[in-house]
């Protein structure tokens, strides 16, 4: 393969492991001077991990980075920035309590001869940056007063202000309007023309294709294809991205669905930061006993907000949630769990596990009341419950007394699922149950859900990976901006789902 332009930065056989998860499996990646290199891949393919390594956020488990022909090691993001590499993160990293000016110059304030901050010089620089981005944002505005898209612009302006040689953009357009995206692309053109290299990541494939010079496709921690823009099209990207998937099972069959157990009726959830905006917008969804429904949507589609609202975390602005025909909207989380509705949250470290407790105590946490004999908990009942759950969800541990941190991501996830299953739910909601776990554990989790459904449990799970929709789900609903855009049976194709969610419209 012929590529013009010299290689500025390259990663050689880079491997990254997080505990038991193999995020990158020996990746060779090159950044060319003055070109836009776009990384394509599904969630969990390893794109963000690779970018974190290139920008000094993470250190590779093994492998090498070569900058200007010399091996380098970045000790921190500051170190990487000093060597000319900066990153615009997918998640905004701004301080909302500070002004636009202070955010842009955070950590590299311009000072006067007397050692005080030279606000005038900073503000002048900010105005120039904003002019270039065609955005009318005053330097003194607090970041918290800006809407999300404008915050993203500030994040971009900050990265631009460093005058980097390599600029990594991880989903920079997720909150931008079409107009703003156009301006950003013009800025990117100007930058590459002046010799700056861009590494670009986006889920909006068509959009990304417009500015790509060189495309690289990652799948399951490996680069599966790469080529120049002239030789590729949308079909090439999609087919390489999704590839052949690890078999995550098929929808369980051989039984009839039961009654409708969960009805979500015209539910809206307001954005706590901006009550006029709805994260879930007038959404209606039913699920029957024994049925598996998959909610597909990208980051910000409203999946998490929907599931949390149904489970009782936070309140709904309008609508009804009926469990077995009874309105549960006013009930506490505990009461909903008692009535058979449980949630396995998306972020297991933040919402799922108590890191200071053992595997066993985590497993029994949601069903402690069932262990009470008189006033005290029965430790024999508890160890029976713990042993049962460990066997039921196949947690690989040497017993309930082990520290939760000693388990791999997949086994930790099984603990969170096992905790909810111990409450004997009739409806189980799982928010991205496969996040951050390896492919083997994924298959186990999906197998578990499938067998639960065949026992009559209604299963509702969300995902942002197309491959996971086409596994055990009887029904796939596509969500975007708080609404359901489409609903499919199990025989849908990946292309149809991605097209419905607005990622790529294929001819």
């Amino acid at each position, binding site marked *: 393969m012929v590529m013009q332009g010299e290689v500025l930065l390259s990663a050689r056989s880079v491997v990254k492991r997080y505990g038991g998860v193999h995020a990158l499996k020996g990746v060779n990646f090159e950044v060319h001077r003055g070109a836009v290199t776009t990384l394509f891949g599904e969630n969990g393919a390893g794109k963000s991990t690779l970018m974190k390594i290139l920008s000094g956020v993470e250190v590779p488990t093994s492998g090498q980075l070569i900058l200007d022909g010399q091996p380098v090691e970045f000790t921190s993001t500051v170190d990487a920035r000093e060597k000319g590499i900066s990153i615009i993160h997918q998640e905004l990293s701004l301080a909302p309590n500070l002004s636009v000016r202070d955010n842009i110059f955070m950590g590299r304030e311009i000072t006067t001869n007397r050692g005080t901050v030279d606000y005038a010089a900073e503000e002048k620089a900010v105005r120039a940056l904003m002019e270039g981005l065609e955005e009318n944002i005053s330097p003194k505005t607090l970041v918290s007063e800006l809407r999300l898209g404008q915050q993203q612009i500030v994040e971009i302006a900050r990265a631009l202000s460093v005058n980097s040689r390599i600029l990594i953009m991880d989903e920079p357009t997720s909150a931008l309007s079409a107009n703003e995206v156009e301006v950003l692309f013009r800025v990117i053109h100007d930058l590459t023309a002046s010799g700056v290299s861009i590494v670009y990541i986006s889920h909006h494939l068509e959009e990304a294709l417009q500015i790509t010079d060189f495309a690289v496709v990652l799948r399951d921690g490996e680069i599966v294809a790469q080529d120049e823009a002239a030789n590729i099209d949308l079909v090439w990207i999609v087919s390489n991205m999704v590839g052949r998937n690890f078999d995550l099972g098929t929808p369980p069959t051989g039984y009839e669905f039961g009654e409708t157990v969960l009805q979500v009726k015209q539910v809206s959830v307001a954005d706590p930061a901006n009550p006029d905006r709805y994260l879930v917008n007038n959404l209606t969804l039913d699920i029957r006993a024994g049925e598996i429904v998959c909610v597909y949507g990208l980051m910000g589609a409203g999946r998490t907000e929907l599931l949390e609202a149904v489970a009782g*975390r936070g309140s709904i602005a309008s609508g009804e949630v009926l469990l077995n025909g009874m309105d549960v909207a006013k009930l506490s*989380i505990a009461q909903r769990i008692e009535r058979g509705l449980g949630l396995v949250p998306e972020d297991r470290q933040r919402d*799922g596990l*108590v890191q200071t407790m053992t595997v066993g105590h985590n497993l029994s946490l*949601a069903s402690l009341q069932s262990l009470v004999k008189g006033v005290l908990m029965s430790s024999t009942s508890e160890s029976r419950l713990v042993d049962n759950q460990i066997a039921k969800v196949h947690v690989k541990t040497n017993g309930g*007394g082990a520290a939760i941190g*000693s388990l*791999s991501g997949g086994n930790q996830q099984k603990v969170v699922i096992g905790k909810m299953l111990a409450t004997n739910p009739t409806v189980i909601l799982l928010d991205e149950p496969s996040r951050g776990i390896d492919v083997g554990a994924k298959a186990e989790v999906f197998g578990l859900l499938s067998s639960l459904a065949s026992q009559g449990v209604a299963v509702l799970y969300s995902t942002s990976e197309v491959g996971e929709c086409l596994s055990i789900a009887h029904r796939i609903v596509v969500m975007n901006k708080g609404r359901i855009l489409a609903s499919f049976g199990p025989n849908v194709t990946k292309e149809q789902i991605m097209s419905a969610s607005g990622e790529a419209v294929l001819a």
Partner: protein
Amino acid sequence: MSTSKPTRLVSLFNDGFDIRATLLRGRAWFALIIIIIVFSVLSPNYLSLNNILQMSAHVAVFAILSMGMLMVILNGGIDLSVGSTLGFAGIIAGSLMQGVDIPALGIKLFPAVWVVVLIAVACGAGIGFINGVLISRFRVAPFVATLGMLYVVRGAALLITGGLTFPKLQGSADLGNTGFNWLGFNRVFGVPVGVVIMLVIAILLSVLLNRTVFGRWIYASGGNNRAAELSGIPVKKVQIRVYVISGMCAAIAGVIIASELTSASPVAGETFELTAIAAVVIGGASLAGGIGAIRGTLLGAFVIGFLSDGLVIIGVSEYWQMIFKGGVIVLAVMLNAIHYRGRKRGPDSPPPTASFAAVSSAPAEPRAEKNVA
């Protein structure tokens, strides 16, 4: 055998590592033993039974206060108002012992001692309840809410007495309210009543923490409040209750002190909240919540009590005592930081050890809530 030698070498190495770990885990025990040995050498009277009992009686007040504080700290909070609550409860007990005027009936009521004690403890619970509501319902930071209560409650105690001390709380046989000094003065089988109360509270709270649902709720919501909430734990109720327990413990300690002195001072218990926090921390609890146990906190209280009494006995100046105490506290926090390093990690950063190694070493890891001293 040719293979036995290397094996033994390896196990020797392992033992070496274990000794370090054991020293770290049992640091409060070792500190207490060292304190006892050093002071026994310096003063022949230190280790006499009488002195040990005397010191234990001093420790009891702090230990009761600290155990209440432990409940709050396990839940991830802090209670700075316990010293003031202690003083306030003493004043309530003192003023009730002086008799309650009921002008409408023209009589003066002298409640029985057990009623006095009950009311004083109920006042402590009430103060804790206010703390809890401020923190859980109105989302005031625990540090600020209880700091405010520290001043409010102290001020209230001073207002009630006009800044004076209630003396002579023995009561009188005519009025049928004798026996208040029993708590502070008497002994049960030679053990001061305060120490007995301390042990009873220790057992009760220990059962509460380890064997009841509520105890597990305290650990869970202190370890990860969001996960606890999503598991159906009423985290706000738990938060209120731990402050109520802390307030009750402080009030009990206040009654004991008033009984020991047979007088109630409105300034009793000043800065005791800091000593209580120190005892909890020396006992191995994590200020971030979720880790700690009664046994450790008791040990922490004994370390502080035996150290300060020892310094008094060998005649070290009060100023040096403060410096010693402060040094011990800082050292304890440092050791805690070493002990818990790598245990509490941010989201999505897995443990540093490879999963296999961590699993195989897991049995050596004490369970979180037994992980004390």
